[in-house]
């Protein structure tokens, strides 16, 4: 149960960390020598230099995918990517980078305006003026170990058992003291007469 609560709170934490700066732009560079109806989509992936997790932002492991696997491309050292020979229409661009979650981007390539491109983040429905893709949130694949904590130990079943024992050992005598000695005696006699075994008689060495 506990890790579940933790994961949800972490998620919330990530959401808080998202910088609300999203700007997208899709360039409109129609291929000069290509056929009339194929265009080029150029964009850029930017990953904030310092992130919550500290995953080294390695561009070499990032893939940019057009239309669910129709085309796959990689990033250049400066973070730019290009899809060539894209026909006019509405396309979907996804960015996959370990440690980050990117929203898929809806890209409209207009045939009428010579490959003018409009982009929208499908997750947040935010339209972009510049094609700069930033992660929506970092992803942490492991649970965080909680640091050593006395309360966690005390709350564990065994901690509770120890705690109960402590109560019995140290607080019960105190309670017993408060009882009137005569009442106590009568109670003890009653117990003896009923033959209820006391703690001492239970143990073998008590004889």
């Amino acid at each position: 149960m506990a890790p579940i609560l933790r994961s949800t709170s972490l998620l919330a934490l990530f959401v808080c960390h998202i910088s609300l700066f999203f700007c997208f732009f899709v360039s409109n560079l129609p291929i000069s020598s290509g056929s009339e109806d194929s265009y080029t989509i150029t964009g850029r992936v930017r990953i904030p230099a310092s992130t919550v997790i500290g995953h080294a932002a390695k561009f070499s492991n990032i893939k940019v995918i057009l239309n669910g696997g129709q085309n796959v491309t990689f990033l250049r050292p400066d973070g730019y990517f290009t899809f060539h020979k894209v026909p006019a229409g509405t396309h979907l661009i996804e960015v996959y980078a370990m440690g980050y979650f990117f929203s898929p981007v809806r890209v409209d390539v207009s045939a009428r305006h010579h490959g003018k491109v409009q982009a929208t983040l499908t997750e947040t429905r935010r339209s972009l003026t510049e094609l700069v893709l930033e992660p929506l949130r970092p992803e942490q694949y492991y649970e965080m170990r909680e640091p050593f904590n006395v309360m966690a130990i005390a709350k564990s079943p065994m901690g509770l058992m120890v705690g109960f024992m402590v109560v019995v050992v140290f607080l019960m005598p105190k309670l017993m003291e408060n009882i009137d000695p005569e009442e106590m005696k009568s109670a003890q006699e009653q117990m003896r007469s009923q033959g209820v075994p006391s703690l001492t008689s239970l143990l073998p060495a008590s004889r």
Partner: protein
Amino acid sequence: MAIRVFLLLLLFLSSAIVSFSLYEDQAGLADWHQRYIGKVKHAVFHTQKTGRKRVIVSTEENVVASLDLRHGEIFWRHVLGTKDAIDGVGIALGKYVITLSSEGSTLRAWNLPDGQMVWETALSSAHHSKSLLSVPINLKVDKDYPITVFGGGYLHAVSAIDGEVLWEKDFTAEGFEVQRVLQPLGSTVIYVLGFVNLSEAVVYQIDSKIGEVVAQKSMVFPGGFSGEISSVSSDKVVVLDSKKSILVTIGFIDGDISFQKTPVSDLVENSGNAEILSPLLSNMLAVKVNKRTIFVKVGGEGKLEVVDSLSDETAMSDSLPVADDQEAFASVHHEGSKIHLMVKLVNELDNVLLRETIQMDQHRGRVHKVFMNNYIRTDRSNGFRALIVMEDHSLLLLQQGAIVWSREEGLASVTDVTTAELPVEKDGVSVAKVEHTLFEWLKGHVLKLKGSLLLASPEDVVAIQELRVKSSGKNKLTRDHNGFRKLILALTRAGKLFALHTGDGRIVWSMLLKSQACERPNGISLYQWQVPHHHAMDKNPSVLVVGRCGSDSSAPGVLSFVDVYTGKKITSSDIGHSVVQVLPLPFTDSTEQRLHLIADTVGHVHLYPKTSEALSIFQREFQNIYWYTVGADDGIIRGHVMKSSCSGETADEYCFTTRELWTVVFPSESEKIISTLTRKPNEVVHTQAKVNTDQDLLYKYVSRNLLFVATVSPKGAGEIGSVTPEESSLVVYLIDTITGRILHRLSHQGCQGPVHAVFSENWVVYHYFNLRAHKYEVTVVEIYDQSRAENKNVWKLILGKHNLTAPITSYSRPEVFTKSQSYFFAQSVKTIAVTSTAKGITSKQLLIGTIGDQILALDKRFVDPRRTLNPSQAEKEEGIIPLTDSLPIIPQSYVTHSHRVEGLKGIVTAPSKLESTTHVFAYGVDLFYTRLAPSKTYDSLTDDFSYALLLITIVALVAAIYITWALSEKKELSEKWR
């Protein structure tokens, strides 16, 4: 009371959103990940004196990778898109790896040390054609000679520094196909040789700086060429004519073209068709004729002369310069279980520079490719190493008469997977022996406790990891109580069967398929043939491997029966008929061999095993055997039934004819089948009834004969972006495969494929693209039995007025109703699977293989049609999650955690003996295995369980008891004195 508390606790647990989650130090305990690259197509060595020695390879799985030459490890690798096949690879400027892909239309440069892409250039191409990459070997790094690329009718010169296209020549009008680009060292003029319509040889001399044609010569060859070409020197090439019987030497000294014809029959007597082999040797060519390889020396005037001949089973490398204008090449041939590697000088074939004999595993097959590299030894002599690709796709490095390293690259193209049990443990070996002494045991647990309390130092963490791996005994080759140790049997495209251990992923055994009918059958599928359970316990379990001689579906099939424990082939047979479909029947014979039907292309089915006992069992059930075929091309689903034994022409009593029982025809103008799916036949369903929150009963419609079919409009069958929402619609059907009855039809307007679906119990979950929202969607359809819905009344049950005992038959028309719900999903999907457990009690998780090659575990409760926006208190207690418009992607529920299963193709799940746990195996270019507990391990203690803490608590309790006893005795004594 205790029961009530327990129930409450259960309720509490089940209402929590259980996500798969892992601490970082638990990674690699129950899971393993193996990285592969696939069958190597090209290899380029990079062995400069400084820096690490590496080899750049490109493979048939569209991978470009840099491997460590010393150990065979992957420095870096990139898996290109599925349609982005690599045509050529080279190293430019000594620092960039150049790859040409997509039929010569994409040129990329990768940084050699770290694999970062440096530049990417799209090249124009007019049509599909063979493509050619020519990277100049420039000795002076400062001078930039352009890379020349031919593809799709265009010749391009590309600068290696930034990928800029310097010039391009359009040859589409002439129909000129470039065959060779020759770049004499130090010259700016390049020679471009090619054919027009395979009948005219043309040579262009092009200034490589500006792309201007300096000179052009062409000459018509009356016979025509076959297109096979071998360049033997900087001014000569040799081609075969269209009849493959004449070798034509084309010389183009100073731009003049000359032909010289030499019939192959002049070289070899009784020659049949000749074939020019691919290795490039200087002033020599290798020709395969009459199943022998002959070496033909090309003289100064184009005179051909046979200098040597070798047996057919010889693989050769390209020649490469060794000292003093000499060129050498490597050849490998087999002799029994050994291979002989020879390196010879091209000019003097008798001068063998190196002769090595290496013992080779029989199950690797023959040598397919050889790549040679030389190095200078300390005594200034030449040393050679050879990279060889075997028939099973494995990659080996040979050096100094030994296999330095090997990689099982066959595992990058797994076609089918099944699991098998390990042998039962014999007496005398027990798991307890792993723990040596009580002290060590305690020490280990103290360490674990430190780890879980975050008090451990880094050394301790390493010690804990080692201890965990050791103490779990997970790598033993025997069965365990929990069923965690199993064998994963993986059949590869090369026709090799591997058995992998679930503990650490090592290969327990491997076996290459063999057949008398053809050289090397392809592997198609795997079936459980014999699983001794009640009877025949002395027998080892075995699997049936179905293979095929050739890629065509009408090619004859090959069956092999393999013992799972030993990996030895029991029998193998060439069955003489084709294999279209294999149907495992739900019957076994007295030795627990499962009956299988194999359908061929002619419409006959064949029964296996071919025993009279099997035949009698089959005859009893003759009327009850139905199956269906899906014709995706013509849009027809057909149901078949047995008719009679095959008539006269073949006296084969195990062959049967069939007849068509029903057809479902989809209108071809509006619907095209893109996906079909059935339930896994061995799936276990725990309960048929589902209790609603209002104490209402729903009966699941659980049938093995349900088929899920998805169709799209023909226009929408293409890629996303090629169709508008108005033009495309997606329709899904649930069809009963006995009667052909359509039980349910659901249409999604403005949606398109690809559809990825999973079918389990009474529900289907499928993933598709919604064009209107421009997002992916996931829909769940649950199917319930209406006819039994009336059996809710207790009185009815008591008085026997229910119909629960009425036989359920597939012939009757079932009254069903469905519930469905749709959600958005933020990622493209490659495959979906579902967890499976031994008894089906544990709640299920969907395993979604995303396009990022990760696997996401999603609880089935997220795709439950009963989800509402505001669930009532009772519904919340039952664990119904409030409805959201999209499914959550919780990073901690990626079962692959920080790994990627590159090129993911499929996910296989198998139950373990422990009800809570399931095995998950994912394959693609990489392999990944893990164990999952979809509802946490409620039936066993976790690895984290701190025995030390338990022990300390018990000790503390005992101590406390004694102290209290001492105190109470003391008190009693003092009371007595009083």
